[in-house]
């Protein structure tokens, strides 16, 4: 177990070495969200409105999406694809370490680091935009929100890890990855709230587990989710099933990797 914690800390040290790039990463995110807030503001000034959302609802939605992007959403698949395609994966085969667990710790470490940073940014933005935000009225909502973030983080990691495992079988994994990742974010509600979609899209989105990454937690926060406990239970089941599935796929992948003779 100790080895996993040292992975955690080493990853933090690595991240702290890069002051400049980290700053730029934060700035880039702030920019992106600012533009969207202006967009919504402009729409609402023009007497438009979107579904059941008030302007504060929408601004809160995107602020939370900013936080969730850093705190929950996972991007480890890029490195995983590189490792598998370039043969560095072999190092893991000879060490007594489970690839899934290893990446979970690295991801956890990265997420907490980036999350800490983005919470600072989010805090500042919330302070600036205080009058334009919607806050939950019950403490229970907050508790459920945090729980949904936790589950969302696990699910996000699992989805991304699954995408990474594609590298065992696909030569040109990257292009496919881009599109797959984008579709997941799309159906997670990262670009637009899912209830703005046309009916057909909405039905699909309801059935897919990706909504638990972004849309579901934010709905809890905005107190628009009618049955949060049930949603959490479903998310949990997805998490467990995916874990088992991933361990299985990983084993198959390793066999494929060794057969190809990297």
């Amino acid at each position, binding site marked *: 177990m100790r080895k996993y914690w040292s992975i955690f*800390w080493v990853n*933090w*040290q690595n991240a*702290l*070495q890069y*002051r400049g790039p980290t700053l730029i990463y934060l700035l880039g995110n702030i920019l992106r969200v600012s533009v969207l807030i202006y967009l919504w503001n402009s729409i609402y000034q023009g007497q438009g409105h979107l579904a059941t959302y008030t302007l504060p609802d929408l601004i809160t939605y995107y602020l939370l999406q900013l936080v969730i992007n850093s705190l929950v959403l996972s991007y480890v698949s890029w490195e995983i694809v590189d490792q598998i395609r370039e043969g560095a994966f072999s190092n893991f085969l000879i060490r007594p370490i489970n690839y899934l667990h290893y990446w979970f710790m690295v991801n956890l470490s990265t997420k907490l680091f980036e999350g800490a940073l983005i919470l600072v940014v989010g805090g500042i933005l919330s302070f600036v935009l205080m009058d334009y935000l919607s806050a939950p009225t019950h403490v229970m909502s907050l508790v459920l929100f945090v729980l949904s973030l936790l589950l969302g983080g696990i699910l996000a990691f699992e989805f991304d890890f699954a995408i990474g495992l594609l590298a065992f079988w696909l030569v040109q994994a990257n292009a496919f990855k881009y599109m797959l990742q984008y579709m997941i974010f799309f159906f997670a509600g990262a670009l637009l709230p899912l209830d703005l979609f046309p009916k057909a899209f909405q039905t699909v989105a309801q059935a897919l587990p990706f909504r638990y990454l972004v849309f579901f937690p934010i709905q809890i926060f905005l107190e628009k989710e009618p049955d949060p406990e049930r949603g959490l239970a479903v998310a949990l089941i997805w998490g467990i099933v995916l874990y088992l599935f991933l361990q299985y796929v990983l084993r198959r992948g390793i066999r494929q990797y060794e057969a190809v003779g990297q």
Partner: protein
Amino acid sequence: MPVIEVRELNKTFKTHRKEPGLVGSLKGLFWREPVFNEAVKSVSFSIEEGELVGFLGPNGAGKTTLLKMLSGILYPSSGEARVLGFVPWERDRAYQRQFAIVMGQKNQLWWDLPPSESFALNRDIYQVDPAAFDRTLAEMVSLLDLKHLLDVPVRHLSLGERMKCELVAALLHQPRVLFLDEPTIGLDVISQERIRSFIQEYNRLKRTTVLLTSHYMRDVEELCQRILVINHGRIVYNGPLQELANRYVDHKIIKIRFSCAPAEGMLAGLEETVESDAHHAVLKVKKKEVARRTRWLLDRLPIDDLSVEEVEVDEVIRRIFEERVIQE
């Protein structure tokens, strides 16, 4: 008028030290302790047109840094240098068209296209007259025996073949000065030989001034009339190769072949003996003692063959790097 003139050239790099552990990393967010690395210290020398000069030194001695300053890639911390009358780091286009630099293992050729394409592109970049270009290319191709390689994509060439093409690409604009940084590094023995003989031939034919850096003794031994030895950023020797041994080494090697096994203990007692068995022996003898010791050996031992040799240049260089200068 020397082609290359360097006076009191200095280059110091600033990096920082990171404290270990997480606390160190957090501290490092705000302040880091600077570390100064003096890569080149008060270097002065001059090189005449047509010379083939070698820079020898261990890794990290400052050879590459020096070459980068002379080609204009780096600015010095202080000091002066002139190549062909230009100050290199001003990057005058007129200067850039008259020199070439090839760095071992740093590919400039386009990876997926045949070398002929990269050559054509260089012709445009260096504004070489097309007729002159064709002539030069034909000359190089025959000198290096490259005809069959011209249309093979670079990624299919071996390391040695790639290096040859890199050299051609660099020389197509007929530079007056050629900088070579570790040109034979990573190559197999045969390729190294071919590259060396080409450089020698080219220098002889074209009177191009060549500056070569290496940490391989053989590069320097075979090619250079004059060598400069660099260690820890300083020039510790500047002169012909032959005199190197005289300055730094005070002994010679005597090699003996016996006609029959010598008497037990005859050589064991001699402190000069390096190795000995029933058939051969090797001794390290001080230069002043060579004549006397030779007579002594010939008198007492059943010797079939005896030769007196210079110390291997490798050994000489090692001594220099350990900075052992003999006070004569």
